[in-house]
Protein backbone atom coordinates (compact mmCIF):
# COMPACT_ATOMS: atom_id res chain seq x y z
CA UNK A 1 0.00 0.00 0.00
CA UNK A 2 1.95 3.01 -1.20
CA UNK A 3 1.16 5.86 1.18
CA UNK A 4 2.78 8.84 -0.49
CA UNK A 5 3.35 8.75 -4.22
CA UNK A 6 7.14 8.60 -4.24
CA UNK A 7 8.55 10.55 -7.18
CA UNK A 8 8.65 7.69 -9.65
CA UNK A 9 11.40 5.20 -8.96
CA UNK A 10 13.43 4.64 -12.10
CA UNK A 11 12.18 1.43 -13.74
CA UNK A 12 14.75 -1.31 -13.44
CA UNK A 13 16.46 0.34 -10.47
CA UNK A 14 16.98 -1.36 -7.14
CA UNK A 15 14.41 0.93 -5.61
CA UNK A 16 11.78 -0.04 -8.16
CA UNK A 17 12.59 -3.69 -7.57
CA UNK A 18 12.16 -3.24 -3.81
CA UNK A 19 8.95 -1.23 -4.01
CA UNK A 20 7.34 -3.41 -6.66
CA UNK A 21 3.66 -3.98 -5.78
CA UNK A 22 3.86 -7.44 -7.36
CA UNK A 23 7.04 -9.13 -6.14
CA UNK A 24 8.08 -12.13 -8.17
CA UNK A 25 9.82 -14.12 -5.45
CA UNK A 26 9.82 -14.75 -1.71
CA UNK A 27 13.12 -12.91 -1.42
CA UNK A 28 11.85 -9.83 -3.21
CA UNK A 29 8.72 -9.72 -1.05
CA UNK A 30 10.78 -9.91 2.14
CA UNK A 31 13.36 -7.33 1.09
CA UNK A 32 10.56 -5.05 -0.11
CA UNK A 33 8.92 -5.22 3.30
CA UNK A 34 12.15 -4.37 5.06
CA UNK A 35 12.81 -1.54 2.64
CA UNK A 36 9.37 -0.03 3.28
CA UNK A 37 9.95 -0.24 7.03
CA UNK A 38 13.34 1.41 6.52
CA UNK A 39 11.74 4.23 4.49
CA UNK A 40 9.39 4.88 7.40
CA UNK A 41 12.21 4.72 9.93
CA UNK A 42 14.40 7.04 7.89
CA UNK A 43 11.88 9.87 8.15
CA UNK A 44 12.51 10.10 11.91
CA UNK A 45 15.69 12.18 12.53
CA UNK A 46 15.92 11.31 16.25
CA UNK A 47 15.70 7.62 15.49
CA UNK A 48 18.32 8.02 12.80
CA UNK A 49 20.71 9.71 15.25
CA UNK A 50 20.07 6.82 17.68
CA UNK A 51 20.90 4.37 14.93
CA UNK A 52 24.05 6.36 14.10
CA UNK A 53 25.21 6.22 17.73
CA UNK A 54 24.61 2.48 17.97
CA UNK A 55 26.31 1.91 14.61
CA UNK A 56 29.25 4.00 15.80
CA UNK A 57 29.48 1.92 18.97
CA UNK A 58 29.53 -1.29 16.96
CA UNK A 59 32.14 0.07 14.53
CA UNK A 60 34.24 1.31 17.42
CA UNK A 61 34.13 -2.10 19.08
CA UNK A 62 34.94 -3.97 15.88
CA UNK A 63 37.76 -1.69 14.74
CA UNK A 64 39.08 -0.78 18.19
CA UNK A 65 42.68 -1.87 17.42
CA UNK A 66 42.72 0.47 14.40
CA UNK A 67 41.41 3.43 16.37
CA UNK A 68 43.54 3.15 19.49
CA UNK A 69 46.55 1.26 20.70
CA UNK A 70 45.49 -1.85 22.62
CA UNK A 71 48.54 -1.77 24.87
CA UNK A 72 48.05 1.79 26.03
CA UNK A 73 44.57 0.85 27.28
CA UNK A 74 46.17 -1.11 30.10
CA UNK A 75 49.74 0.23 30.03
CA UNK A 76 50.56 2.02 33.26
CA UNK A 77 52.89 4.97 32.85
CA UNK A 78 53.05 6.34 36.34
CA UNK A 79 54.97 9.52 35.50
CA UNK A 80 52.09 10.44 33.10
CA UNK A 81 49.31 9.95 35.63
CA UNK A 82 46.29 12.28 35.65
CA UNK A 83 47.40 14.26 32.61
CA UNK A 84 44.79 16.55 31.03
CA UNK A 85 43.82 16.18 27.38
CA UNK A 86 46.71 16.55 24.96
CA UNK A 87 47.58 15.44 21.44
CA UNK A 88 49.18 12.33 22.86
CA UNK A 89 46.24 11.53 25.13
CA UNK A 90 43.09 13.07 23.59
CA UNK A 91 41.01 12.37 26.72
CA UNK A 92 43.89 12.65 29.21
CA UNK A 93 45.17 9.88 31.46
CA UNK A 94 43.83 8.26 34.61
CA UNK A 95 45.34 7.80 38.06
CA UNK A 96 47.64 5.01 36.80
CA UNK A 97 48.76 6.91 33.72
CA UNK A 98 46.62 4.88 31.28
CA UNK A 99 45.32 6.56 28.15
CA UNK A 100 41.60 7.22 28.72
CA UNK A 101 40.85 7.46 24.98
CA UNK A 102 42.18 3.94 24.39
CA UNK A 103 40.32 2.68 27.45
CA UNK A 104 37.01 4.17 26.28
CA UNK A 105 37.51 2.69 22.82
CA UNK A 106 38.31 -0.78 24.12
CA UNK A 107 35.65 -0.43 26.82
CA UNK A 108 33.05 -0.33 24.03
CA UNK A 109 33.86 -4.00 23.38
CA UNK A 110 33.01 -4.92 26.95
CA UNK A 111 29.80 -2.87 26.90
CA UNK A 112 28.73 -4.38 23.59
CA UNK A 113 29.55 -7.90 24.79
CA UNK A 114 27.41 -7.44 27.89
CA UNK A 115 24.53 -5.95 25.91
CA UNK A 116 24.58 -8.68 23.25
CA UNK A 117 24.93 -11.52 25.74
CA UNK A 118 22.10 -10.22 27.91
CA UNK A 119 19.91 -9.89 24.81
CA UNK A 120 20.78 -13.38 23.63
CA UNK A 121 19.79 -14.83 26.99
CA UNK A 122 16.81 -12.65 27.85
CA UNK A 123 14.81 -12.86 24.61
CA UNK A 124 14.74 -16.69 24.28
CA UNK A 125 14.01 -17.12 28.00
CA UNK A 126 11.23 -14.52 27.90
CA UNK A 127 9.69 -16.14 24.81
CA UNK A 128 10.07 -19.65 26.21
CA UNK A 129 8.10 -18.65 29.32
CA UNK A 130 5.64 -16.18 27.81
CA UNK A 131 4.58 -17.98 24.62
CA UNK A 132 3.38 -21.24 26.23
CA UNK A 133 1.76 -19.29 29.06
CA UNK A 134 -0.30 -17.23 26.64
CA UNK A 135 -0.92 -20.03 24.17
CA UNK A 136 -1.99 -22.87 26.45
CA UNK A 137 -3.49 -20.79 29.26
CA UNK A 138 -4.95 -22.53 32.30
CA UNK A 139 -2.54 -24.30 34.63
CA UNK A 140 0.47 -23.75 32.36
CA UNK A 141 -0.23 -20.02 32.38
CA UNK A 142 -0.71 -19.87 36.14
CA UNK A 143 2.48 -21.76 36.96
CA UNK A 144 4.68 -19.91 34.47
CA UNK A 145 3.37 -16.49 35.32
CA UNK A 146 3.67 -17.00 39.09
CA UNK A 147 7.32 -17.93 38.56
CA UNK A 148 7.65 -14.74 36.53
CA UNK A 149 5.97 -12.76 39.30
CA UNK A 150 8.48 -14.10 41.81
CA UNK A 151 11.39 -12.94 39.67
CA UNK A 152 9.65 -9.66 39.04
CA UNK A 153 9.31 -9.04 42.77
CA UNK A 154 13.09 -8.97 43.30
CA UNK A 155 14.69 -5.55 43.14
CA UNK A 156 16.75 -5.70 40.02
CA UNK A 157 20.05 -4.20 41.06
CA UNK A 158 20.00 -5.88 44.48
CA UNK A 159 19.44 -9.32 42.92
CA UNK A 160 22.15 -8.65 40.35
CA UNK A 161 24.43 -7.60 43.22
CA UNK A 162 23.63 -10.75 45.17
CA UNK A 163 24.33 -12.97 42.15
CA UNK A 164 27.54 -11.17 41.30
CA UNK A 165 28.61 -11.43 44.91
CA UNK A 166 27.70 -15.13 45.17
CA UNK A 167 29.15 -16.22 41.83
CA UNK A 168 32.18 -13.98 42.11
CA UNK A 169 32.80 -10.75 40.22
CA UNK A 170 33.43 -10.82 36.47
CA UNK A 171 31.75 -9.96 33.19
CA UNK A 172 30.18 -13.39 32.64
CA UNK A 173 28.61 -13.37 36.07
CA UNK A 174 27.48 -9.79 35.62
CA UNK A 175 25.74 -10.88 32.40
CA UNK A 176 24.06 -13.82 34.14
CA UNK A 177 23.02 -11.61 37.03
CA UNK A 178 21.52 -8.97 34.73
CA UNK A 179 19.82 -11.55 32.52
CA UNK A 180 18.26 -13.31 35.50
CA UNK A 181 16.56 -10.11 36.55
CA UNK A 182 15.78 -8.75 33.09
CA UNK A 183 13.70 -11.56 31.52
CA UNK A 184 10.35 -11.32 33.41
CA UNK A 185 9.04 -8.27 31.52
CA UNK A 186 9.79 -10.10 28.26
CA UNK A 187 7.80 -13.11 29.39
CA UNK A 188 4.87 -10.85 30.23
CA UNK A 189 5.14 -9.04 26.92
CA UNK A 190 5.29 -12.29 24.96
CA UNK A 191 2.31 -13.63 26.89
CA UNK A 192 0.25 -10.50 26.25
CA UNK A 193 1.09 -10.55 22.54
CA UNK A 194 0.21 -14.24 22.36
CA UNK A 195 -3.12 -13.68 24.08
CA UNK A 196 -4.13 -11.04 21.55
CA UNK A 197 -3.49 -13.35 18.60
CA UNK A 198 -4.45 -16.66 20.23
CA UNK A 199 -8.12 -16.43 19.24
CA UNK A 200 -7.44 -14.96 15.81
CA UNK A 201 -8.98 -16.82 12.92
CA UNK A 202 -5.65 -17.39 11.21
CA UNK A 203 -4.57 -19.42 14.24
CA UNK A 204 -7.77 -21.47 14.00
CA UNK A 205 -7.17 -21.90 10.29
CA UNK A 206 -3.67 -23.22 11.02
CA UNK A 207 -5.10 -25.58 13.63
CA UNK A 208 -7.67 -26.76 11.12
CA UNK A 209 -4.93 -27.54 8.63
CA UNK A 210 -3.35 -29.85 11.15
CA UNK A 211 -0.49 -27.63 12.34
CA UNK A 212 1.01 -28.77 15.63
CA UNK A 213 1.13 -26.44 18.62
CA UNK A 214 4.86 -26.04 18.09
CA UNK A 215 4.39 -25.08 14.46
CA UNK A 216 1.63 -22.61 15.28
CA UNK A 217 3.73 -20.96 17.97
CA UNK A 218 6.88 -20.86 15.85
CA UNK A 219 5.42 -19.79 12.52
CA UNK A 220 2.28 -17.86 13.46
CA UNK A 221 2.77 -16.32 16.89
CA UNK A 222 6.52 -15.66 17.16
CA UNK A 223 6.57 -13.37 14.09
CA UNK A 224 3.87 -11.27 15.77
CA UNK A 225 5.63 -11.16 19.15
CA UNK A 226 9.15 -10.54 17.96
CA UNK A 227 8.87 -6.91 16.83
CA UNK A 228 7.56 -5.68 20.17
CA UNK A 229 10.09 -7.84 22.04
CA UNK A 230 12.97 -6.42 19.99
CA UNK A 231 11.72 -2.88 20.52
CA UNK A 232 11.47 -3.53 24.23
CA UNK A 233 14.99 -4.95 24.24
CA UNK A 234 16.36 -1.87 22.48
CA UNK A 235 14.66 0.38 25.02
CA UNK A 236 16.00 -1.79 27.85
CA UNK A 237 19.55 -1.65 26.52
CA UNK A 238 20.16 1.67 28.24
CA UNK A 239 19.08 0.16 31.55
CA UNK A 240 21.23 -2.91 30.97
CA UNK A 241 24.28 -0.75 30.18
CA UNK A 242 23.65 1.30 33.31
CA UNK A 243 23.25 -1.82 35.44
CA UNK A 244 26.45 -3.24 33.99
CA UNK A 245 28.20 0.05 34.66
CA UNK A 246 26.74 0.07 38.16
CA UNK A 247 28.07 -3.42 38.83
CA UNK A 248 31.41 -2.33 37.41
CA UNK A 249 31.35 0.77 39.59
CA UNK A 250 30.79 -1.40 42.67
CA UNK A 251 33.63 -3.69 41.63
CA UNK A 252 31.29 -6.62 40.87
CA UNK A 253 31.45 -6.40 37.09
CA UNK A 254 34.52 -6.39 34.89
CA UNK A 255 37.72 -6.64 36.92
CA UNK A 256 40.73 -4.34 36.66
CA UNK A 257 42.59 -3.68 34.54
CA UNK A 258 39.75 -4.35 32.03
CA UNK A 259 38.61 -0.94 30.72
CA UNK A 260 34.95 -1.24 31.70
CA UNK A 261 33.23 2.16 31.62
CA UNK A 262 31.49 1.81 34.99
CA UNK A 263 34.72 0.75 36.68
CA UNK A 264 36.48 3.72 35.04
CA UNK A 265 33.92 6.13 36.51
CA UNK A 266 34.46 4.47 39.86
CA UNK A 267 38.23 4.87 39.72
CA UNK A 268 37.88 8.52 38.79
CA UNK A 269 35.65 9.51 41.65
CA UNK A 270 38.49 10.25 44.11
CA UNK A 271 39.86 12.86 41.75
CA UNK A 272 36.54 14.12 40.44
CA UNK A 273 37.11 17.77 41.42
CA UNK A 274 40.69 18.27 40.33
CA UNK A 275 40.92 15.82 37.39
CA UNK A 276 37.29 15.79 36.25
CA UNK A 277 37.98 14.03 32.93
CA UNK A 278 38.91 10.70 34.55
CA UNK A 279 35.31 10.02 35.63
CA UNK A 280 33.48 12.29 33.19
CA UNK A 281 34.73 10.84 29.89
CA UNK A 282 33.58 7.22 30.53
CA UNK A 283 30.44 8.65 32.14
CA UNK A 284 29.73 10.56 28.94
CA UNK A 285 30.32 7.40 26.92
CA UNK A 286 27.73 5.54 29.03
CA UNK A 287 25.33 8.46 28.67
CA UNK A 288 25.67 8.73 24.89
CA UNK A 289 25.32 5.00 24.25
CA UNK A 290 22.28 4.73 26.54
CA UNK A 291 20.71 7.68 24.80
CA UNK A 292 21.47 6.13 21.41
CA UNK A 293 19.73 2.87 22.29
CA UNK A 294 16.73 4.76 23.69
CA UNK A 295 16.34 6.88 20.57
CA UNK A 296 16.71 3.81 18.37
CA UNK A 297 14.08 1.95 20.38
CA UNK A 298 11.64 4.85 20.19
CA UNK A 299 12.18 5.07 16.45
CA UNK A 300 11.62 1.36 15.97
CA UNK A 301 8.42 1.57 17.99
CA UNK A 302 7.14 4.46 15.92
CA UNK A 303 8.05 2.69 12.67
CA UNK A 304 6.24 -0.47 13.72
CA UNK A 305 3.19 1.54 14.82
CA UNK A 306 2.99 3.27 11.48
CA UNK A 307 2.95 -0.04 9.66
CA UNK A 308 0.04 -1.53 11.62
Amino acid at each position, binding site marked *: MATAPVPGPVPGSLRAWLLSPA*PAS*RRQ*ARFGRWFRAWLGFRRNPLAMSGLAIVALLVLMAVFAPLIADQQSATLQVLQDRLQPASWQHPFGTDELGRDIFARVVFGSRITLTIVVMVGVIVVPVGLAIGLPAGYFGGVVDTVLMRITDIFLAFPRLVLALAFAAALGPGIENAVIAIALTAWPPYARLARAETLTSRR*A*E*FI*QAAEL*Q*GASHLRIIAT*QIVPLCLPSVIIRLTLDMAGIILTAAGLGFLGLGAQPPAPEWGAMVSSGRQVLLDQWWVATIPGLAIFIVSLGFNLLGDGLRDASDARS
Partner: protein
Amino acid sequence: MIALDDVTIAYGSGPRAVVAVRDFTLAVPEGEAVGLVGESGSGKSTVLRAVAGLIPYAGGEVTLAGRRVDRRRTTAERKMVQMVFQDPYGSLHPNQTVDQTLAMPVAIHRLDNGEARIAQVLAEVGLGREHRYRYPHQLSGGQRQRVAIARALILEPRILLLDEPTSALDVSVQAEILNLLSRLRRDHGLTMLMVSHDLAVIAHLCERIGVMSRGQLLEITTATAMANNQVTHDYTRQLLRSNAGFDRSSVSSGELDVVVG
Protein backbone atom coordinates in the same frame (compact mmCIF):
# COMPACT_ATOMS: atom_id res chain seq x y z
CA MET B 1 -20.55 -37.52 4.11
CA ILE B 2 -21.35 -35.41 7.14
CA ALA B 3 -23.65 -36.88 9.74
CA LEU B 4 -24.58 -35.30 13.03
CA ASP B 5 -26.65 -37.38 15.42
CA ASP B 6 -28.19 -35.78 18.49
CA VAL B 7 -25.18 -33.53 18.86
CA THR B 8 -25.13 -31.31 21.91
CA ILE B 9 -22.48 -28.65 22.25
CA ALA B 10 -21.83 -26.71 25.42
CA TYR B 11 -19.39 -23.95 26.26
CA GLY B 12 -17.75 -24.26 29.66
CA SER B 13 -18.25 -27.19 31.98
CA GLY B 14 -20.02 -28.11 35.21
CA PRO B 15 -22.98 -26.13 36.50
CA ARG B 16 -21.91 -23.00 34.60
CA ALA B 17 -21.93 -24.69 31.20
CA VAL B 18 -23.96 -22.94 28.54
CA VAL B 19 -25.61 -25.26 26.06
CA ALA B 20 -25.24 -23.65 22.65
CA VAL B 21 -26.65 -26.45 20.51
CA ARG B 22 -29.03 -29.18 21.65
CA ASP B 23 -29.88 -32.52 19.99
CA PHE B 24 -28.84 -31.45 16.53
CA THR B 25 -29.36 -34.04 13.82
CA LEU B 26 -28.45 -33.48 10.20
CA ALA B 27 -27.07 -35.59 7.36
CA VAL B 28 -25.32 -34.19 4.32
CA PRO B 29 -24.76 -36.71 1.53
CA GLU B 30 -21.64 -36.53 -0.58
CA GLY B 31 -21.64 -33.67 -3.08
CA GLU B 32 -24.58 -31.88 -1.55
CA ALA B 33 -24.53 -28.36 -0.17
CA VAL B 34 -26.58 -27.67 2.91
CA GLY B 35 -27.07 -24.26 4.45
CA LEU B 36 -27.83 -23.31 8.00
CA VAL B 37 -29.67 -20.08 8.64
CA GLY B 38 -30.71 -18.40 11.82
CA GLU B 39 -30.20 -15.22 13.75
CA SER B 40 -27.06 -14.38 15.70
CA GLY B 41 -26.59 -16.71 18.64
CA SER B 42 -28.74 -19.45 17.19
CA GLY B 43 -25.80 -21.83 17.31
CA LYS B 44 -25.23 -22.24 13.59
CA SER B 45 -21.56 -21.31 13.69
CA THR B 46 -21.09 -23.53 16.72
CA VAL B 47 -22.28 -26.54 14.72
CA LEU B 48 -19.79 -25.66 12.00
CA ARG B 49 -16.94 -25.39 14.48
CA ALA B 50 -17.75 -28.75 16.00
CA VAL B 51 -17.75 -30.37 12.55
CA ALA B 52 -14.43 -28.64 11.82
CA GLY B 53 -12.98 -29.94 15.07
CA LEU B 54 -12.27 -26.53 16.52
CA ILE B 55 -14.44 -27.15 19.58
CA PRO B 56 -15.44 -30.36 21.36
CA TYR B 57 -19.01 -31.56 21.57
CA ALA B 58 -20.63 -32.83 24.73
CA GLY B 59 -23.10 -35.41 23.46
CA GLY B 60 -24.15 -37.26 20.34
CA GLU B 61 -21.96 -38.23 17.44
CA VAL B 62 -20.30 -36.47 14.52
CA THR B 63 -19.41 -38.76 11.65
CA LEU B 64 -17.36 -37.70 8.64
CA ALA B 65 -17.08 -40.10 5.70
CA GLY B 66 -18.22 -42.92 7.95
CA ARG B 67 -15.70 -42.27 10.70
CA ARG B 68 -16.61 -40.89 14.10
CA VAL B 69 -14.55 -37.81 14.85
CA ASP B 70 -13.89 -35.67 17.89
CA ARG B 71 -11.93 -32.51 18.55
CA ARG B 72 -8.62 -34.35 18.40
CA ARG B 73 -8.03 -35.47 14.85
CA THR B 74 -5.43 -37.20 12.79
CA THR B 75 -3.67 -35.36 9.99
CA ALA B 76 -5.71 -37.28 7.40
CA GLU B 77 -8.95 -36.29 9.13
CA ARG B 78 -7.80 -32.68 9.17
CA LYS B 79 -7.03 -32.81 5.47
CA MET B 80 -10.55 -34.01 4.68
CA VAL B 81 -12.35 -31.01 6.23
CA GLN B 82 -11.39 -27.43 5.55
CA MET B 83 -13.11 -24.19 6.38
CA VAL B 84 -13.43 -20.67 5.03
CA PHE B 85 -13.91 -18.07 7.71
CA GLN B 86 -16.14 -15.05 7.79
CA ASP B 87 -13.61 -12.28 8.13
CA PRO B 88 -10.98 -12.27 5.39
CA TYR B 89 -9.09 -9.61 7.36
CA GLY B 90 -8.69 -11.81 10.44
CA SER B 91 -8.23 -15.17 8.81
CA LEU B 92 -4.92 -14.42 7.07
CA HIS B 93 -1.69 -13.93 9.00
CA PRO B 94 -0.84 -10.23 8.60
CA ASN B 95 2.92 -10.81 8.32
CA GLN B 96 2.86 -13.60 5.79
CA THR B 97 2.66 -13.41 2.04
CA VAL B 98 0.02 -15.34 0.13
CA ASP B 99 2.81 -17.73 -0.82
CA GLN B 100 3.74 -18.40 2.81
CA THR B 101 0.10 -18.88 3.78
CA LEU B 102 -0.32 -21.50 1.07
CA ALA B 103 3.06 -23.15 1.68
CA MET B 104 2.24 -24.05 5.27
CA PRO B 105 -0.49 -26.64 4.61
CA VAL B 106 1.74 -28.17 1.93
CA ALA B 107 4.54 -28.49 4.49
CA ILE B 108 2.27 -29.88 7.21
CA HIS B 109 0.89 -32.65 5.02
CA ARG B 110 4.21 -33.19 3.21
CA LEU B 111 2.52 -32.84 -0.17
CA ASP B 112 4.69 -33.18 -3.25
CA ASN B 113 5.07 -30.49 -5.95
CA GLY B 114 4.40 -27.66 -3.52
CA GLU B 115 5.35 -24.99 -6.05
CA ALA B 116 3.02 -26.32 -8.73
CA ARG B 117 0.20 -26.84 -6.26
CA ILE B 118 0.36 -23.24 -5.05
CA ALA B 119 0.41 -21.87 -8.59
CA GLN B 120 -2.46 -24.10 -9.61
CA VAL B 121 -4.71 -23.34 -6.67
CA LEU B 122 -4.13 -19.60 -7.10
CA ALA B 123 -5.17 -19.84 -10.73
CA GLU B 124 -8.20 -21.83 -9.68
CA VAL B 125 -9.49 -19.13 -7.35
CA GLY B 126 -8.83 -16.46 -9.95
CA LEU B 127 -5.66 -14.88 -8.58
CA GLY B 128 -2.73 -14.11 -10.84
CA ARG B 129 1.00 -14.65 -10.43
CA GLU B 130 1.36 -11.06 -9.31
CA HIS B 131 -0.67 -11.77 -6.15
CA ARG B 132 1.45 -14.66 -5.00
CA TYR B 133 4.08 -12.72 -3.07
CA ARG B 134 1.85 -9.99 -1.72
CA TYR B 135 1.00 -9.42 1.90
CA PRO B 136 -2.65 -9.41 2.96
CA HIS B 137 -2.63 -5.63 3.42
CA GLN B 138 -1.80 -5.32 -0.28
CA LEU B 139 -4.97 -7.20 -1.26
CA SER B 140 -8.63 -6.21 -1.36
CA GLY B 141 -11.26 -7.95 0.74
CA GLY B 142 -12.44 -10.11 -2.13
CA GLN B 143 -8.88 -11.09 -3.02
CA ARG B 144 -8.19 -12.02 0.58
CA GLN B 145 -11.24 -14.24 0.67
CA ARG B 146 -9.98 -15.90 -2.52
CA VAL B 147 -6.70 -16.57 -0.74
CA ALA B 148 -8.61 -18.05 2.19
CA ILE B 149 -10.50 -20.29 -0.22
CA ALA B 150 -7.24 -21.27 -1.92
CA ARG B 151 -5.75 -22.16 1.46
CA ALA B 152 -8.68 -24.47 2.18
CA LEU B 153 -8.59 -25.94 -1.31
CA ILE B 154 -4.88 -26.68 -1.51
CA LEU B 155 -5.36 -29.69 0.78
CA GLU B 156 -7.91 -31.11 -1.66
CA PRO B 157 -10.56 -31.54 1.03
CA ARG B 158 -13.76 -33.46 0.45
CA ILE B 159 -15.75 -31.25 2.78
CA LEU B 160 -15.72 -27.47 2.73
CA LEU B 161 -17.24 -25.59 5.64
CA LEU B 162 -18.24 -21.99 5.00
CA ASP B 163 -18.81 -19.63 7.89
CA GLU B 164 -20.55 -16.61 6.35
CA PRO B 165 -17.93 -16.42 3.61
CA THR B 166 -19.42 -13.35 1.96
CA SER B 167 -20.89 -11.27 4.76
CA ALA B 168 -17.76 -9.13 5.20
CA LEU B 169 -17.64 -8.27 1.50
CA ASP B 170 -19.54 -5.71 -0.50
CA VAL B 171 -22.35 -6.87 -2.73
CA SER B 172 -20.62 -7.03 -6.12
CA VAL B 173 -17.72 -9.00 -4.62
CA GLN B 174 -20.17 -11.28 -2.80
CA ALA B 175 -21.57 -12.46 -6.11
CA GLU B 176 -18.09 -13.19 -7.49
CA ILE B 177 -17.14 -15.24 -4.45
CA LEU B 178 -20.44 -17.16 -4.54
CA ASN B 179 -19.95 -17.96 -8.22
CA LEU B 180 -16.41 -19.09 -7.46
CA LEU B 181 -17.65 -21.34 -4.68
CA SER B 182 -20.33 -22.97 -6.80
CA ARG B 183 -17.83 -23.53 -9.61
CA LEU B 184 -15.34 -25.11 -7.22
CA ARG B 185 -18.06 -27.29 -5.78
CA ARG B 186 -18.94 -28.55 -9.24
CA ASP B 187 -15.31 -29.09 -10.29
CA HIS B 188 -14.21 -30.89 -7.14
CA GLY B 189 -17.43 -32.57 -6.09
CA LEU B 190 -17.18 -30.84 -2.72
CA THR B 191 -19.62 -31.47 0.08
CA MET B 192 -20.51 -28.14 1.61
CA LEU B 193 -21.99 -27.00 4.86
CA MET B 194 -22.59 -23.29 4.90
CA VAL B 195 -23.70 -20.90 7.56
CA SER B 196 -25.24 -17.53 6.86
CA HIS B 197 -27.94 -15.21 8.01
CA ASP B 198 -28.51 -14.10 4.45
CA LEU B 199 -31.14 -16.30 2.82
CA ALA B 200 -30.27 -15.13 -0.69
CA VAL B 201 -26.65 -16.21 -0.25
CA ILE B 202 -27.67 -19.59 1.14
CA ALA B 203 -30.26 -20.18 -1.58
CA HIS B 204 -27.71 -19.43 -4.27
CA LEU B 205 -25.40 -22.23 -3.18
CA CYS B 206 -27.43 -24.77 -1.23
CA GLU B 207 -30.21 -27.18 -2.15
CA ARG B 208 -31.35 -27.85 1.37
CA ILE B 209 -31.57 -25.30 4.13
CA GLY B 210 -31.76 -25.91 7.85
CA VAL B 211 -33.36 -23.26 9.99
CA MET B 212 -31.92 -22.84 13.46
CA SER B 213 -33.08 -20.91 16.46
CA ARG B 214 -31.82 -20.97 20.05
CA GLY B 215 -29.56 -23.93 19.52
CA GLN B 216 -32.13 -26.13 17.85
CA LEU B 217 -32.84 -27.16 14.31
CA LEU B 218 -36.43 -26.12 13.68
CA GLU B 219 -36.91 -27.50 10.20
CA ILE B 220 -35.12 -28.55 7.06
CA THR B 221 -36.51 -27.13 3.89
CA THR B 222 -35.32 -26.60 0.36
CA ALA B 223 -34.26 -23.48 -1.46
CA THR B 224 -37.21 -23.87 -3.85
CA ALA B 225 -39.69 -24.21 -1.04
CA MET B 226 -38.30 -21.10 0.56
CA ALA B 227 -38.50 -19.17 -2.68
CA ASN B 228 -42.17 -20.19 -3.03
CA ASN B 229 -42.86 -19.40 0.60
CA GLN B 230 -43.86 -23.01 1.28
CA VAL B 231 -42.52 -23.32 4.79
CA THR B 232 -44.14 -24.96 7.75
CA HIS B 233 -42.56 -23.31 10.73
CA ASP B 234 -43.65 -19.91 11.99
CA TYR B 235 -40.10 -18.88 12.76
CA THR B 236 -39.01 -19.62 9.20
CA ARG B 237 -41.86 -17.51 7.88
CA GLN B 238 -40.76 -14.66 10.11
CA LEU B 239 -37.19 -15.10 8.93
CA LEU B 240 -38.35 -14.98 5.32
CA ARG B 241 -40.28 -11.80 5.97
CA SER B 242 -37.38 -10.09 7.69
CA ASN B 243 -35.11 -11.07 4.79
CA ALA B 244 -37.51 -9.59 2.28
CA GLY B 245 -36.40 -6.18 3.43
CA PHE B 246 -38.07 -3.76 5.75
CA ASP B 247 -41.70 -4.59 6.03
CA ARG B 248 -44.11 -3.29 8.63
CA SER B 249 -45.71 -6.70 8.99
CA SER B 250 -42.46 -8.33 10.07
CA VAL B 251 -42.57 -6.30 13.25
CA SER B 252 -45.14 -8.43 14.99
CA SER B 253 -47.05 -6.16 17.31
CA GLY B 254 -45.99 -2.75 16.12
CA GLU B 255 -43.87 -1.96 19.19
CA LEU B 256 -41.46 -0.19 16.92
CA ASP B 257 -42.97 3.16 16.17
CA VAL B 258 -40.84 4.69 13.50
CA VAL B 259 -40.89 8.45 13.76
CA VAL B 260 -40.98 9.82 10.26
CA GLY B 261 -39.50 13.22 9.46
